[in-house]
């Protein structure tokens, strides 16, 4: 697991985002246990309360669940939930940014589409 705390989001959101990434990539697979709050705090020198706040955010989103006495586990369907969520954000976050940049570069919609196709071909 690799955490990268560079962004300027509140720390607990960054903690949640990093765990979400690990769930999405399958590093933390569905049904498996996620590292405990203490483990994460120790490893990255983060206040346990902050880590817990991040973890609770994931519980609220239904991505992890607490099993009493055992710890936190990735829920069934968590990956699909994240995928759906990210698809919903894809237009507002990525496509609109792409279009804004393309307009600044005076690229037409067709030209952008053909670039996107090329991108698909070159990307495995």
């Amino acid at each position, binding site marked *: 697991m690799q955490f990268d*705390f560079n962004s*300027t989001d*509140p*720390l*607990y959101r960054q903690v949640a985002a990093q765990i979400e990434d690990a769930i999405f990539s399958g590093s933390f697979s569905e049904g498996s246990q996620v590292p405990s*709050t*203490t483990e994460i*705090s*120790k*490893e*990255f*020198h*983060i*206040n*346990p*309360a*902050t880590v817990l706040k991040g973890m609770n955010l994931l519980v609220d989103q239904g991505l992890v669940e607490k099993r009493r006495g055992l710890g936190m586990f990735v829920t069934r369907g968590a990956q699909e939930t994240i995928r759906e969520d990210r698809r919903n954000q894809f237009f507002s976050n990525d496509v609109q940014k792409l279009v804004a940049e393309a307009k600044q570069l005076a690229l037409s919609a067709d030209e952008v589409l053909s670039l996107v196709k090329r991108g698909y071909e070159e990307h495995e």
Partner: protein
Amino acid sequence: MSSGIEIQHLSKQYEKKTILHDINLKFEPKTIYGLLGRNGAGKSTLLGLISDRIFPTQGRILFNAEMIHDNDQILGQFYLMSEVDLYPNRRRVRQLFRDTEQLYGEFNRKYADELVKKFGLDDSSQYGKLSTGYRTIVKLIIALCVPATYIFLDEPVLGLDANHRDIFYRELVETYTERPRTFVISTHLIEEIANLIEQVVVIKSGRVLVDDSSEALIAESYAITGPKNVVDSFVSGLNVIGSETLGNLKAAYVFGALDDRPIPDVITIEHMDLQKLFVNLTNEEETQNDAL
């Protein structure tokens, strides 16, 4: 009745020099604090006052609404690890642990042994024969193993190499999780503890400059970067605490709300980290310029 430590209108003068001026602070139970300030700001004096090693010129310190002064029952719940070496040089490390146990009536020997191993400390060695780093480690081990519920760490990583500092931060989390208690950490290595501390107190020239949660502080600290003239007009009227320029590019550091002013396309707004905020808040030159 409030719980925790409450400092009211505390001032300390040495001869005619004011070291601390009208300090009002609270230290709540089970919380990790960062006590930050430049050299000579008054941090060590404040910690000395809280642990009743020195006495205030004015004001008072309460614990659960009782005066701490000369109150052994209260002071037994505080532990101050300071830069000053209080231990006899010829005493062996193991004996120091035993001395502490006698003084405090309790000492987590099992955890101390674990820490001795983790830090690679030779506990049969005489205290005076240890390197600066290992003397700090001995003091740290004692601070983490005493039964006190308020632990004050004045420069806890002095002379420690990167590996030993890493062990210390991990153990701090470990022991805090196992037995939550208050830690007040005074250090110059702000970056290393920035994410560990929940509350931040900044002292500048003997006065409390900041007393807030780290989260709230970061949320209202901004670095605004862009062309000089655009940045200058954007930040006019805001609380600018510092700036840097590189040719026509300017970064202005703002502490406090940005209000609803429109943000020009050519500037970027980010949050400052704690270290950057601290440097800008406590920069002496900046203050002098403001005063002119």
